[in-house]
Every structure is written in structure tokens, then in C-alpha cells.
């Protein structure tokens, strides 16, 4: 049972053998996504085999091309205490131009809800959140 002093500020990602390449990329300031060496499809989140062809020949590569806002939601209540300073919290899904339907979930930082538009260009940013963990986040690509 969780007690008060164990409630996380924000849950930290716990990399495993399958996902490590993604989080290592984040620490290096790069959005690296799992790609099948056999059929060349990208997939996210990473998995033990390619969901398109079943191959286990997978690796992580920097994702080429841009990102577009696929959809989003806005939370006005913090889902954990550590999100309180981020309210209203925008949870977004970015779609990769490299492959239709390839989505990545993160927060949309540096903008307000009213500025969000379906298909708006996004750029990844890398947010250190303590204990050596770095999150992939997104912000609008306009105004750079």
C-alpha cells in the first residue's frame, strides 16, 4: 500500500531490455524509435517482435521527418502530485510523418490549449526529470 511519502512526484520510466534504446536516445537528446530490419516498419512503443511481420530483428534509429499533432486531451486535476505545476496538463499524441499511424505520447509543453490544432507541427524536446531520467516531450514547431 502506498503511503503519503511514497507518492511519486511524477512516475519515472523504468527502462527494460526492450525499451532501453528509446530512453538512451532521450538521454542523448535524440528521438530514437524502434524499426524492423526485415520489413523496415517503425513501431512504438517498442515490442519484442515486429507487429507487422513477426521479425525479431529490431533496432533503434533516429526518427526522420517531422511530427504532427494527432490528438490531445487536457487535464485540470493533477494525475499525481508532481504534475501540479504543469496544470492545465496537455497530453498529446504526435504522428510521425515518416509513417502514417505511428504515434508517440507525451506532454505538449510551451503552449496553451487554445493554440492547439489538429496536424500542427511539433518538435521533440528532452526534459530531465531527476535521477538521470530524461523524458521525450513535444512543443509546437512554429516560432522557432
Amino acid at each position: 500500500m502506498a503511503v503519503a511519502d511514497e507518492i511519486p512526484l511524477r512516475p519515472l520510466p523504468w527502462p527494460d531490455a526492450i525499451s532501453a534504446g528509446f530512453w538512451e536516445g532521450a538521454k542523448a537528446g535524440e528521438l530514437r524509435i524502434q524499426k524492423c530490419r526485415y520489413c523496415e516498419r517503425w513501431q512504438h512503443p517498442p515490442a519484442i517482435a515486429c507487429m507487422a511481420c513477426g521479425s525479431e530483428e529490431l533496432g533503434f534509429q533516429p526518427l526522420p521527418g517531422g511530427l504532427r499533432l494527432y490528438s490531445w486531451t487536457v487535464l485540470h486535476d493533477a494525475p499525481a502530485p508532481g504534475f501540479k505545476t504543469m496544470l492545465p496538463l496537455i497530453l498529446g499524441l504526435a504522428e510521425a510523418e515518416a509513417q502514417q499511424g505511428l504515434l508517440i505520447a507525451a506532454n505538449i509543453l510551451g503552449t496553451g490549449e487554445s493554440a492547439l490544432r489538429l496536424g500542427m507541427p511539433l518538435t521533440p524536446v528532452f526534459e530531465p526529470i531527476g535521477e538521470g531520467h530524461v523524458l521525450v516531450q513535444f512543443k509546437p514547431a512554429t516560432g522557432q
Partner: protein
Amino acid sequence: MIWEHRNRIAVAGVGYSAIGRRSGRTLASLTLEACKAALTDAGLDQREVDGIATSPSMPRYGGRKGVDEGVDVVTPHYLAELLGVAPQIAWTGSTNAMVTQSLIDGALAIAAGLCRHVLVYRALHVPDGRYVNFDSAFATGPDQFLAPYGFSMPPAWVATVMRRYFELHGYSRADFARYIVDNRDNARRNPNAWCRDKPLSAEDYLSTRMIADPVSMLDCDLPVDGSCALLLTTTERARDLRRKPALLTGFAASTHNGGSAIPMTLEHMLEGGRQVAKRLWETTGLSPAEVGSAQLYDGFSMLVVTWLESMGFCKDGEGLAFLRDGHGALSGSLPVNTGGGALGEGRLHGMTQIAEAVLQVSGRAGERQVEGAQHSLATISNGLSKATAFLFARAD
């Protein structure tokens, strides 16, 4: 190809426990009440039950999780003991998928001759603690890509589905109000519904608290303490029992995973639903035009829209307009969730839809009866893997 057992298996009894919130009752007590009610409804002695099936697991997030028999879960083996029928049980089924997968298993067990009278039940309760939350310091497995962003909550996933649908097709929450109100009106005609005494206006809907904008409290079904049970048997046997049976014309299950950054997306839900629809219409030999009422899973309001479209009742993007214009009301061309669905009845994981379809085709839906309906459809879950659809027919 038409299913060879079409209309040969039937639901002969429906039973509900009292539906409450933090009632203090154990799952075992709720389950026994529902199962005994289903047996009484069918006019069957419990000594004739020889098959039992359920999905005993609780939802993924939130609240205290336990595995104590009778308190946190009720497995078929434990229920057999509680009913004092363990020695005669020839078949049990237990699934991690939605409970409605158990209905398929039970029907097939009867068709295969393994057993004759099967109880299919679901019991849920409101656990201690916040129901929707993620309360670990570290996020592992699929949650490592969700929880660090505050995304480990199903209402947020479905909110992205609703937001995308709104943006693609030019809708807003105001377009949902008519359906939410029509649905509550249906619940008020359903003696089993948690919300039967709670009227609701469009203004109430539009001013209610957001959980994950644009998904509000009133777009999510309410966790309740409750249980629902069905008694399944052959149609031949059912004709000797107390009630007019509801014949199982056919069923289909989704195998479309569509693995993505979150567990549900608009396009994958529609694709999974379309695959279910194709199998259902092919194996039953029927079409959407022959459905008199549709019980479409509404763990979230948005799912009603995706089911309307994927099952072939509406074109893409037109499902919400269909509801907004009242076509899904009790007086409309396709009454939807005639008993108020899970939004009105409480969260029983799809048993609501099955039970209502059964009551409609057996002419037992009281004030909310749709006249002349030969078939009722029930769909469960979101169209992705583990989602199911069932078509029930009126017995001649």
C-alpha cells in the same frame, strides 16, 4: 458462412443483484444474489447447473487490488462451492478478456455437449482508494510510455479519441448532450439502473466536471458494487423453462490489436469494429437493417459513436449527428442502449448490454420495450482485441 448453431443456444434467465456504491457487501454476496435471481428467473433449480463461467479480474488501474476469493474476485470454482453444486459442475470457463468472452465460451461448451445449463456472471465493486490513478513511483512495461506523462488513465485515452473525432468532423460536446439526456431517460425506465432516480438535463451535462477534456464525469460509466448473471442453455431446453428465451443468433470477437502509443485510437477502434461487424453479419446472415435495438457498449459515451459507425448503422463521421438528431432515442429509428447502458446502470463490463438485448427480444423490457423488434444487438468493449458483439433473436 452461417454459424451452424445459430438460434440453438438461448439465454433463459437474467438476474441482477442490488446495484450500490460502497455498499459494504462482498463480491461473493453480490454474485450469489445475481445468480440466484437468474435461476429463479429461468425457473431452474441450482442442482441443474453444470457449467459456470466469468472473467474474475478487476480493471487495470486504481484502488486496492487483491486476490481474495469472495472479496476481490469470485472464480467459477468458488461460486460452485457457494452454490453447493461443485460435484455436478462439468465445465468452467475463466477469461482475462471482457466477461462477455465467457458468454461465447459458455455457448460453445453447450454446443459441444459438455454441459447443459451454464451460469455466466460478472461481479464488480468499487475498491478502496481512487478508482482511476497510477500510484507507483516507477512506471514499467506499457506504463513507462504513459504514466510519466499523466497518461495512465483510460478516460484520457478515450478523450484523445473524442477530441480527434470532434476535430475531424466538426463536432463539440454540445452535440453529445441529446444522447446523454435520452440515455438517462432510458435509465429512468430501468429498475436495475443506478441512475433510475436521477434526472439529467443538457445543461447538467455541459456544466459537469471534466476528467480529461473533452471527457467529463457524465461521459464515463460509474463504478458500482453489483453483479449480473445470465443462465444459458439450449433453445430446446429453454422452451420448457419459465421465460420466453432470447436466442443467440451469433457472435463475433475482435482480434484487431492496432498496438499504438495509447491503448485505443479512433482509427483502430473503427477498424476493429468493422472486422467484428463483417464476421457478425456473415455468420448470422443478417444486416444492420434487421436490428430493432442496439445495445452499444458505453463504458465511455464516445464508444457508442464508434460502434454505430463500425457496425454499419452510420457512415464515418455521422454517428454523433445520428444521436444528436434523436435517431437513437427510444422513439427513434434505432433505439440505442434502451436500458440506459452502463452510463445509466453502472459499470458491469458489458453485462448491461447483453442483459438488455435479452430483455428486449423476450418482450420483458417493461416501460422501455421496443415494439416489434425481432433482433437486438449487443456490442462490448471498444472494438479492439477482446471486444465482442452478439445478436439475439426473439423466439417464435
